[in-house]
């Protein structure tokens, strides 16, 4: 048997595992910084969208993966975030970057408040309650007495933020999309680090304990109601920030952008990526961003059928998501190395 300490001593091509990790991280970092200048603007835009989805999925994963509460209604928080940002920018001239914390806070409160009654609901009943939330969202956004703020059925058209500096690299200018790439990347990095901090700490352990053994957790002194509602709030905050970023990146919000399929898509992303894992959100986001495009290229007649086949096929191959498979492979490799 190899002890964990010994594993770190092993050298591959003259470098220790730790050194390889650092090297990999540096290469990855440089790639992330250079990449937008190697791609067309629209590709950059796609990546921006994928990063936005990754944040939203991470939010849902905290609730569903770590805390065991199913939500079919996270599209609602995405919508609240998006509309908060859009209304602040459009009506009150707030700069785009300042809308994110506001959107996050609004969703934190909304999620916490929604989490309180949801405490009494479990499993399918919680699924119904959140599903109802998702269905009601477009209807509320269209409601005539809110029209002054929400723009009613027509939605709100926004201006894309201009990059603050003029800059050129590899002959490519820092366009609006490239600037938003860096902005989104920064926000995503902060959100992922924050999630990592929350989840490995006391609260994270409490969340997992509630998922696995609620009664034991309560007996150990975990305040069930508080932790569950707070998880709902934080999860909604993540999705709300993603929604606000999404509104900035797409430069448009309308009730029809936030229908029930958005909620389902976020859930699909969370499960496909793999539950209870932070990096899984990235895989989930890649799936929901790119697979529909592939489906469209395969069949114009029934693109959804192709998408469904992909979805089911993936669940067969990786019942616990991409991350689950990676973990399995990792475990096998480690066993093999021993």
């Amino acid at each position, binding site marked *: 048997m190899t002890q964990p300490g010994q594993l770190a001593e092993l050298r591959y091509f003259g470098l220790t595992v730790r050194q390889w990790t650092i090297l990999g991280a540096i290469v990855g970092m440089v790639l992330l910084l250079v990449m937008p200048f190697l791609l067309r603007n629209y590709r950059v835009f796609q990546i921006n969208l994928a990063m936005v989805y990754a944040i939203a999925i991470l939010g849902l994963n905290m609730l*569903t993966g770590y805390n065991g509460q*199913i939500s079919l209604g996270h599209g609602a928080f995405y919508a609240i975030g998006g509309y908060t940002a859009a209304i602040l920018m459009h009506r009150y001239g707030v700069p785009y970057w300042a809308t994110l914390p506001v959107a996050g806070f609004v969703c934190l409160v909304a999620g916490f408040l929604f989490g309180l*009654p949801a405490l*009494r*609901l*479990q499993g*399918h*009943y919680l*699924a*119904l*309650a959140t*599903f*109802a*939330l998702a*269905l*009601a969202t477009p*209807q*509320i956004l*269209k*409601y*005539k007495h809110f029209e002054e703020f929400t723009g009613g059925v027509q939605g709100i058209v926004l201006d894309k933020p201009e990059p603050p500096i003029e800059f050129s690299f590899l002959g490519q200018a820092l366009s609006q999309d490239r600037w938003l790439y860096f902005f989104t990347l920064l926000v995503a990095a902060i959100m992922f680090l924050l999630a990592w901090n929350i989840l490995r700490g006391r609260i994270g352990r409490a969340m997992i304990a509630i998922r696995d053994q609620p*009664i034991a957790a309560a007996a150990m002194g975990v305040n069930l109601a508080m932790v569950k509602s707070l998880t709902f709030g934080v999860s909604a905050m993540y999705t709300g920030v993603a929604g606000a970023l999404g509104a900035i990146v797409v430069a448009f919000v309308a009730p029809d952008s936030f229908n029930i399929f958005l909620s*389902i898509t976020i*859930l*699909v992303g969370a*499960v*496909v990526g793999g*539950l209870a894992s932070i990096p899984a959100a990235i895989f989930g986001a890649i799936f929901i961003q790119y697979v529909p495009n592939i489906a469209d290229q395969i069949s114009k*007649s*029934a*693109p*959804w*059928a192709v*998408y*469904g*086949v992909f*979805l*089911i096929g993936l*669940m*067969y191959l990786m*019942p*616990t998501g991409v991350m689950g498979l990676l973990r399995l492979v990792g475990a096998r490799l480690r066993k093999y190395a021993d």
Partner: protein
Amino acid sequence: MEAFLHQVFSGLATGGIYASMALALVMIYQSTHHINFSQGEMATFCTFIAWALIETGFPYWVAFFATVAIGLVGGMAIQRIFLRPVENAPILTNVIVFIGLLVIFNSTAGWIFDHTIKAFPSPFPRGTFFDTQYFSSHEIGSIMVTLLVLVALYAFFRFTPLGLAMRAAAQNPVSSRLVGIRVSWMLALGWGLAAAIGAIAGMMVAPIVYLDPNMMAGILLYGFAGALLGGIDNPWGAVFGGFVVGVLENVLGAYVIGTELKLTVALVLIVGVLTLKPTGLFGKVVVTRV
């Protein structure tokens, strides 16, 4: 008052639709402990098959029973082919497979049968003796059919050995296996029955709402709400829940809040009731032993 009665009865008629869908959901839940999101699309697809049969010249009742049989076999086949591989996977993996099935059925129906709405014949034509001012004969007929299905199911589960075996398989798979019940096939049978009930629901609904690939999308939600309101493990409760949702929605929309927010308010009310009675109005309270 007359108008109010009219709203209530029209609500009962749509409630009957929700009730039949709720019943199919309860059916699947009883035998598999899953809620099947693709239930509505499966029902729509079956109804399209019935429509195609009738178009090619089969008499209504032949098409009707053929479709129920196709639903039964098809439902079992879906369970064996699509769900068995993920039987032991986490619940959410199953949910994703349901979503996959939903989009496949929806998309395929649109592809094969097109999106233009189709009139579906009713076995209870207008002008029969129970045609009243408030109900069309089809509405009464379809409510009767729903109740009939309910009674048949009750009898099946209560009095037949197969029904008993199915209940046992769902409640305690391990012990059931020990006494020789083929649990996996019981699950498949549950799916088959649910698909068959769905097909009946679809054929009863289609004459009212017209047949198109998205026919069941809205209905599934209300059926879902009705089933949970009444208690997901109680067929009688589910049917009752379906009727309550239908009437509630109509009365709220017509008199209290207007149509613009009626869906929202109806849902808030249902969720509100559920927070007070978390297992539904007639659900069994599950006591967990630690």
